[in-house]
């Protein structure tokens, strides 16, 4: 059984022109298909605007696909929810972690209250049961009892992102979508959170759809990768193969744009230094 099956996903946005009336259609995601096995980790890479977030939003039901189908745990979720039971069930199947740790937690809700809300929604645990589960969740993301009563503003970016991961884990989903989940963190914190994600996957068997423009990060936490350009998949395969022996010229350019010793930004942009300086 697969965690996620996406088939021929397309998303077309209607863009309003300057005059307010002139519409034109913009294809943000164009015929994207992929499968994520249970417990697997799929990376989606691509430059800014290539449609990564749009895919994440379609998977999580925040955006409706223009065409194509999505199934999580073999249950279709291409159509809007029809009942509150189904809405909760989808919540137990797929969760999401966003990029910005500063806006992804309710500023008025303590971390404990936030987890409590999820547990109330998805489990039959009593008060004491929820309390011990909250402590367990905090512990599993490297936070402790003290953080339960903290408001987000009292936490660092890394701690907030850990809290957001704990929230995503609370309902024990089959898959978690992480949209640039470590991109806003500084490098050392990034490494800690990536280690945490690896550990959690090994322990709980949760699958990841891991979206990033950072290739080093993709290499660390994913088994397979998919390279997106202007909404289309240009290359896919095992992460190592894609990153070490890229077949597509676009992937090669993406790889070349990672700053390493001897890196030449002008070569990446494909322009002569004189032209750039103008």
């Amino acid at each position, binding site marked *: 059984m697969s965690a996620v099956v996406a088939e021929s996903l397309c998303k077309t946005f209607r863009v309003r022109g300057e005059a307010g009336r002139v519409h034109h259609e913009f294809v943000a995601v164009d015929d994207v298909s992929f499968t994520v096995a249970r417990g697997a980790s799929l990376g989606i890479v691509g430059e800014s605007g290539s449609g990564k977030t749009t895919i994440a939003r379609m998977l999580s039901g925040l955006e409706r696909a223009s065409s194509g189908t999505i199934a999580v745990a073999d249950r279709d979720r291409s159509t809007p929810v029809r009942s509150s039971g189904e809405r909760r069930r989808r919540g137990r199947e797929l969760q999401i972690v966003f*990029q910005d740790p500063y806006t992804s937690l309710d500023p008025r809700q303590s971390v404990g209250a936030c987890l409590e809300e999820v547990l109330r929604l998805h489990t039959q645990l009593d008060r004491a049961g929820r309390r011990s589960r909250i402590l367990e969740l905090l512990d599993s993301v490297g936070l402790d009892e003290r953080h339960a009563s903290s408001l987000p503003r009292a936490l660092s970016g890394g701690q907030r992102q850990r809290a957001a991961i704990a929230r995503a884990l609370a309902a024990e989903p089959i898959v978690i979508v992480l949209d640039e989940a470590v991109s806003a963190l500084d490098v050392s914190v990034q490494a800690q959170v990536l280690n945490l994600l690896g550990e959690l996957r090994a322990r709980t068997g949760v699958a990841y759809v891991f979206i990033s423009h950072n290739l080093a990060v993709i290499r660390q936490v994913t088994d397979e990768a998919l390279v997106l350009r202007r909404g289309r998949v240009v290359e896919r395969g095992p992460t190592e193969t894609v990153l070490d022996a890229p077949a597509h010229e676009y992937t090669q350019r993406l790889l070349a744009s990672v700053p390493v010793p001897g890196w030449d930004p002008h070569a990446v942009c494909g322009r002569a230094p004189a032209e750039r300086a103008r």
Partner: protein
Amino acid sequence: MSATAISPVAAVPTVRRRRVARLHARIGTAGMVAVAFLAVVALAAILAPLIAPNPNAEDLLNITAGPSLGHPLGTDELGRNLLSRLIWGARTSLLGPLIVIGAATGVAVPVAAVAGWRGGAVDLAISRLLDLMFAFPGLLLAILVVALYGTGLVPCSIALAISYMPWIARVARSGIVRERHKPYIAAAEVQGVSGFAICVRHLIPNISSIIWSQVTISFGYALVDLAALSFLGLNIQPPTSDWGVMVNNENALLDGHPVEVLYPCLLIVLCVTAVTYVGNRLASEEERRAR
């Protein structure tokens, strides 16, 4: 969830003190003075039966008397205790705006939540309807309602509540639209939290300061509008004491005893200034934070 050393007993005043400090940081010392003044007036209004003698008792041997121990602010032209009338008058004068703003907010916030949450055609329809309601001047609507249903606090308050509703709804809606697309709301949606619960538990609490600033400013306007309606003889009827009724007393002016008109005027001005000042401070603080 107190793993810290603070005992629950000691924690309560700390929380309250922190809340006072946070309010102080937002509205300043002058704002705190305004709040204290309003609290005193409100407390006097609530405790009127305990602290103020019958405001309609006529002491015909002591008409238009100056201040004395029995009548700290003197008496009016019927020998009624002025301070007592002001304190009892505070009850209707403050209760009226409370009803107006309570009713207006009670309708406006859910309407705004539906518009902001659903968006699209629902939002458009509600916004157009609110635009339409802006066209009705509150006082004229009140006069119309009084003409149809008779004078009194209830018809006047309902009419004003209807005309105040769109103002509060518009401000609340724009706050909700701004908040609605933040990731924490999306996270709650993905969790499977119902739209109703998201609005009640997350969206509305997070725009509460915007709503509070609009509510306090509107309260001042409602107080003036209701006093004006009393003055016009459409709201509270004499001999019931009410600041608006007390202002409408040309005899006092003709008899050369203007204090009985001046005191209620002063109270209206002070209350409106205090409440509007607090509201404006809250609003500008909100604007500063939004940027």
